[in-house]
């Protein structure tokens, strides 16, 4: 299975989870895990997604960045392996 981690950070307001998850739904990307915390007044959401059957990862990334702009939050997507190599021996 190919997985990616989406990180969303910004000032907390309504609609962030809905906005991001609706983009994922449009692309047929399944959410495997989701965590969300508030650090000070910063909203931090981390979403683990399955991208095994996704045809165009680039398009998803571009769409997520757009959505981030609309929601005024910082969104990034990285394939999961990069976290594994950095944090696991």
């Amino acid at each position, binding site marked *: 299975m190919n997985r990616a*981690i989406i*990180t969303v*950070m910004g000032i907390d307001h309504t609609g962030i989870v809905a906005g991001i998850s609706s983009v994922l739904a449009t692309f047929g990307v399944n959410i495997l*895990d989701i*965590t969300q*915390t508030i650090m000070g007044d910063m909203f*931090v959401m*981390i979403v*683990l997604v399955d991208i095994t059957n996704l045809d165009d*990862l*680039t398009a998803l*990334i571009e769409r997520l960045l757009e959505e981030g702009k609309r929601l005024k939050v*910082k969104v*990034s*997507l*990285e*394939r*999961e*392996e*990069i*976290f*594994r*190599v*950095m*944090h696991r021996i």
Partner: protein
Amino acid sequence: MFFTTEEILETIRMVQTEHLDIRTITLGVNLLDCRRDRLEETVISISKRLKEVTRDFLDVVKKVELEYGIPIVNRRVAITPVSLLIQSEDIEEYLYLSKGLDKIAEEMGLDFIGGYTAFLEYEINKRGLAFIKAIPLILNETSRLCASIVVASTRGGINVDAIKEIAYIILDTARLKNNPISCAKLIVMSNPPPDNPFMAGAFQGIERGEKVLNVGISGPGTVRAALERLPKEANLIDVAEEIKRIAFKITRAGEFIGKEISKRLDIKFGSVDISLAPTPDEGDSVGKIIEKIGLEHIGAPGSTAVLFLINDAIKRGGLMASSSIGGLSGTFIPVSEDKSIAEAVSCGALTLEKLEALTNVCSVGLDMIPIPGDIDPYSLMGIILDEMAIGVMANKTTAVRILPVPGGKPGEWIELGGLLGKAPIINVNSFSCKGIFDRGGRIPPPVNSFRN
């Protein structure tokens, strides 16, 4: 979730706010079988080969950069040393080939192409002389080709006659069009590694195979930020541990990205060079790391020890992270490219002599240092000779990349632009060393070169 929030945010923070990047992906390409009887045909053959090898290079790099979220700053090619591709006493031939290489690099969208390289540590004959005499014209008439001249090695000793010639070449390169920046593409070296991904010293060593992908990873900002998070009372062991930890992580990331690109291009993975390479950005400075550890400025007494600590911790983390550590791997101290090192020169904390001392424990040498354009050529020769002696004796790479500024006086700032940054012209000791060069010849290799 397989990772903690802290782990995920640490990676994101390193990239987004601490300038973690892959500084370069450098494809090493063997061009030995592109040699033809006629030079024009050699250039055509090289062009064909490089186009073939780099066809998907930029697209794949762009894709991987996007998918893994780590910026890749430079795309480069390192080729078989040009001195092995043509053997000529005619400067025009070297110029013709160089312009051809530069054009290919431009057409392929490469940032740099390295390999205008010659090995002169044993002798400098008529061909070697023509090779280096072409350099001022080449570096002033091309924009992407980098030159590296080897004048010393632990096995071969130091060729003082070659140093004498190359000093004039450096001065001519800067003077030809009153442009010291041309000299940023020229490096004089001892013991160069055959898999260095960084310019200006990159070339494809003949032992490195047909084509190979090398990665240069950097991240002074990540180290500085990690040190900032350490408690004030952290002792030097804690500091070394923290640097090692960060070096491990960024090396793993770099190696992974390199291997991914290598897999997608079907080109063998070579080595990963973990080097703290600063940029003029405030947060991306090696000088600042040194200050953070406990010095007012780099150059203060204690600087050599602190740089040794950093350099060694970087290597330790890198070696633990990857079995393919290569290139230079350590810490660069380029004066103009590091804001706080340039400022240390400006305020008098850092002198040329202290920089030389620091090169004993950094990974390269005297780098990106503006000097007065009217320097006595013999003084420039002496500076190079001393730096080569350090490399030869310590059995490490050392290099000199120095920028004579026509009409420039010590203390005047010179703006080099972009990633090359700016720096004050450094004061040079003007006592004469002419006598050594009047004697000429070679300095024999040191006792420690005999390891059999």
